[in-house]
């Protein structure tokens, strides 16, 4: 069974600070996706990383896929209160590109205080 471990589980920081969230597995995934989920809503896709070593930037968010495609990180620069939310990583099973089924981590609950 493939598992994804996210750390930290909870993170509370002040506005303007930088942070990194980690997603680790002993399994290789064909690709990995990061989602953000608000309370009572469905996950919203932020990014998909496919190639080992790939780095993608989305404004102040930087996503990296490990060389071995087993781990990923999300780095937020100069966090703002609007970044508050639950960040989920999800590995795509199999070799179906982004169409494979998702294995989700438990998430990192981020709170950014003004």
């Amino acid at each position, binding site marked *: 069974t493939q598992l994804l471990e996210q750390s930290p589980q909870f993170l509370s920081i002040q506005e303007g600070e930088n942070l990194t969230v980690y997603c680790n597995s002993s399994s290789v995934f064909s690709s990995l*996706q990061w*989602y953000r989920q608000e309370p*009572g*809503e*469905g*996950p*919203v*896709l932020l990014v*998909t990383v496919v190639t080992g070593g790939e780095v993608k930037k989305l404004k102040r968010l930087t996503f990296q896929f490990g060389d071995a495609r087993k781990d990923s990180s999300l780095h937020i620069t100069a966090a703002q209160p609007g970044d508050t939310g639950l960040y*989920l990583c*999800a590995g795509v099973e199999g070799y179906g*590109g*982004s*169409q494979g*089924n*998702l*294995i*989700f*981590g*438990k*998430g990192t609950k981020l709170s950014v205080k003004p």
Partner: protein
Amino acid sequence: EPEVTQTPSHQVTQMGQEVILRCVPISNHLYFYWYRQILGQKVEFLVSFYNNEISEKSEIFDDQFSVERPDGSNFTLKIRSTKLEDSAMYFCASSEASGKYFGPGTRLTVT
């Protein structure tokens, strides 16, 4: 922007009753999924559907569960005889090429 919609937003049912959760995927998407999230736990895969048939299902998706695409727009999840442990948020998702788009979920409460 196109989005996945789900109805109802909240369903309360008694143990042993049948429920049907409804989803309207994004119109040009070809792959459809159901996931569930028990309160405080991970989002878990239930089933994927492509070309009018189930392409994969998890251990959770036992004989009590079924899916259907009754027309060109709806995608339903039926639970025949609900159990207390079926209480969860149920998310429908659809995808075309990159990434999955999730609906807002149906909160199912089994009493």
